[in-house]
């Protein structure tokens, strides 16, 4: 059964230096509050996995939490580059960042296979792309029935999954609504999971086929109001598109970034 913890306690207890951590939320319900807590606790040498690194990983990479990034699209959506990610890849600041990149289709399949307990995902992918030349995890197999050549990638099975969701009931069952992304998959694929939620309620109010994670499939739940901001939580608050644009200026420069980090992360306590 899921244990209700403070965010501080959940991160402290379940994320270790050197862990492989997936913080997911495909353009929605991005777990920013958890990311900031990881920065505050100065976790180091993490292998970060995420389809769309987004600002949350830009911040964590800039803060020095990551040694490796596995991803499929690393930009500030609709705005431009992730400057902290680029600084780490291009200049090694604040530390060298190893990267391994996939396509979205491959990563989505790799999460799906991880949730399904399989060691590999098979897809019709990477045809004609140079990505297999720079990612030695991409292999090709032959279908034993048709002879077709198909791509294979290892499934994602991280140490820890971190997601944000709309709400949990008091038993620890969690409802995710709207753009559900790969959140169910990453929680089921991970050894441990931390779910932050907007609120804890008596009744989830879930429809019959809603995306609900049962309490016994989750390790820890922490309440974190506006825990996805500047991303959004459908039914709670909108995406702060203005901040996404503003981030471009903040992150371009190491000093303005560090100031921002100090004022907005380190000097703010955990929820």
């Amino acid at each position, binding site marked *: 059964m899921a244990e209700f913890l403070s965010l501080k306690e959940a991160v402290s207890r379940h994320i270790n230096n050197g862990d492989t951590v997936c913080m997911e939320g495909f353009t929605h319900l991005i777990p920013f509050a958890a990311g900031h807590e990881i920065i505050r606790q100065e976790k180091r040498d993490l292998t970060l996995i995420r389809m769309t690194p987004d600002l949350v990983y830009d911040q964590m990479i800039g803060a020095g939490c990551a040694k490796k990034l596995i991803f499929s699209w690393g930009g500030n959506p609709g705005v431009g580059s992730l400057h902290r990610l680029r600084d780490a890849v291009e200049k090694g600041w604040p530390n060298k960042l190893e990267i391994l990149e996939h396509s979205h289709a491959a990563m989505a399949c790799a999460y799906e296979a991880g949730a399904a307990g399989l060691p590999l995902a098979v897809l019709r992918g990477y045809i004609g792309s140079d990505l297999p030349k720079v990612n030695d995890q991409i292999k090709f197999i032959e279908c034993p029935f048709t002879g077709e050549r198909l791509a294979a990638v290892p499934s994602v099975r991280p140490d820890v999954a971190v997601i944000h969701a709309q709400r949990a009931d008091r038993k620890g069952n969690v409802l995710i609504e709207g*753009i559900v992304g790969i959140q169910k998959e990453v929680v089921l694929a991970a050894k441990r999971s931390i779910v932050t939620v907007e609120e804890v309620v008596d009744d989830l109010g879930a429809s019959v086929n809603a995306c609900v994670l049962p309490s016994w499939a989750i390790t820890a739940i922490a309440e974190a109001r506006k825990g996805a901001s500047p991303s959004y939580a459908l039914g709670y608050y909108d995406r702060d598109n203005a901040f996404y644009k503003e981030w471009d200026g903040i992150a371009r420069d190491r000093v303005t970034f560090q100031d921002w980090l100090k004022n907005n992360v380190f000097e703010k306590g955990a929820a």
Partner: protein
Amino acid sequence: MSLEYTSSEMMSVTAARALTSDMTCFVGIGLPSEAANLARLTHAPDVTLIYESGTLQTKPDVLPLSIGDGELCESALTTVAVPEMFRYWLQGGHISVGFLGTAQIDRYANLNTTLIGDYREPKVRLPGGGGAPEIATNAKEVFITVKHSKRTFVKDVDFVTTVGFGRDGKARDNVSNIGRGPTVVITDLCILKPDPDSKELVVTSLHPDVTRDEVIEATGWEILFADTLETTPEPSAKELEVLRDLKARTNAHHAGQQ
């Protein structure tokens, strides 16, 4: 009595016209999203728009900044998980058109959104592949829209993130279960299509008031022109009005948040 319009507007309107109501379009963010929604709000009201965030048949009132803005989900027929989107809807063969942008494109319509320079020592690191590598092979055909410049239109891309027709134009030959690939590239200067045999991109239509020299100047290889070169029809007053309203609504919406 020509209307006033910018080259960007010309590009968006022309790209929008490539879509019809019977198409199921997997929409990339940015220019493709603008064109696809313009099509939906003008001549193709029933075009089905799908974004990789899982939103099926969505009808946003403003353009999303990311492919997962709440607007997309709230106006969709339904929203599915991302693995389902890529497995069932894209790989499953239900997408007629993939609509993509790019950072670099070469003469065989290969796309590079990974990096400029060498992979291990990049001059500029770009976002990466995202959905494009499999959209380009699993959709029945691919439309591309991108601004025309020598930096973007290069003879050979630094990195083939997403295959057009490969380094030699033959990458799709004898491959089973693969779409037709790029069938049209729409820029702010012209329309290009792959030669049926060589697959090299050929200018088939110049936008009004654009010269061959301007296209040659903005292209990083010796660009070919079709024997019968057309002139792209101008935007209509209606198209321009809808496009400008859409962009104004979008800017107001995104600026107004927080």
